[in-house]
């Protein structure tokens, strides 16, 4: 049995944020974008989109995704020409029935990320991808002579 379900967090999804990483300080999308994306209310058959949170500190960007019930081996991360794609396959067993569906999200990795050092961790149903900032992008103090 194949079950496609709506991710609850996608219900309040207002827009496609793939562009986000390109403009880390662009802020939240406008209401106009919300209405232009109403067509997305019905999820596609191929997989629902994962919602994302992004944080940063002085050394890293952190991208978090909710993936309850997803096992480590069912998470796939792929970096391809500056795009990071996260896919999670969710399998559920209800009695004799087994259902599965996939969730996916692609984001542009910002400039100045040390792509070699990107790391991911799965804990309590939250996938956290750590994207370390390259040395030259870290804030620094410039001394006055």
């Amino acid at each position, binding site marked *: 049995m194949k079950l496609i379900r709506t991710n609850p*967090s996608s219900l*309040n999804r207002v827009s496609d*944020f793939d562009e*986000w990483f390109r403009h880390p300080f662009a802020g939240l999308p406008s209401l106009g974008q919300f209405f232009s994306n109403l067509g997305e209310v019905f999820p596609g058959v191929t997989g629902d989109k994962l919602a994302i949170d992004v*944080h940063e500190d002085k050394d890293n960007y952190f991208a978090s995704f*909710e993936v309850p*019930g997803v096992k480590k081996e069912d998470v796939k991360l792929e970096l391809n020409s500056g795009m990071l794609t996260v896919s999670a396959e969710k399998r*559920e067993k209800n009695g004799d029935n087994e259902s599965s569906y996939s969730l996916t999200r692609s984001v542009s990795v910002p400039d100045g990320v040390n792509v070699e050092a990107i790391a991911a961790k799965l804990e*309590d*149903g939250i996938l956290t991808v750590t994207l370390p900032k390259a040395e030259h992008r870290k804030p620094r103090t410039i001394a006055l002579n």
Partner: protein
Amino acid sequence: MNATCSPSTCAPATSGVTESLRKPLYNVNGNAEAYEVRVEMPGVPKSGVKLDLEDNILTVRGERNTTVPEGMKALHRELSPLSYILRLRLNTPVEEDKMTAKLEDGVLTLRLPLKEVAKPRQIPVL
């Protein structure tokens, strides 16, 4: 984890403060022996789960850790930071003392064994 809990762990969190909570996604399955309730609560650690069964109302709470570490700022948010609450009315007697709960990968699985009286039985034809 046990369904029965001490007053300190199950104290209602209504001390004049309005809490924002949301209802988690959940699934109930059952067979002749037990009900199985699966509740999706990503972001909730084991220590954040509170269970309570009183007057046939099963209450499941999941507290998310919402503190942002020092020096970290949110650039973009789509995920809700709210904690979870689910109340289910049980219409079948269950063995309270034999209830079990397991939290794995952000999914809480509760097993509620049915009381003998609630189990289906075969009636022989004489």
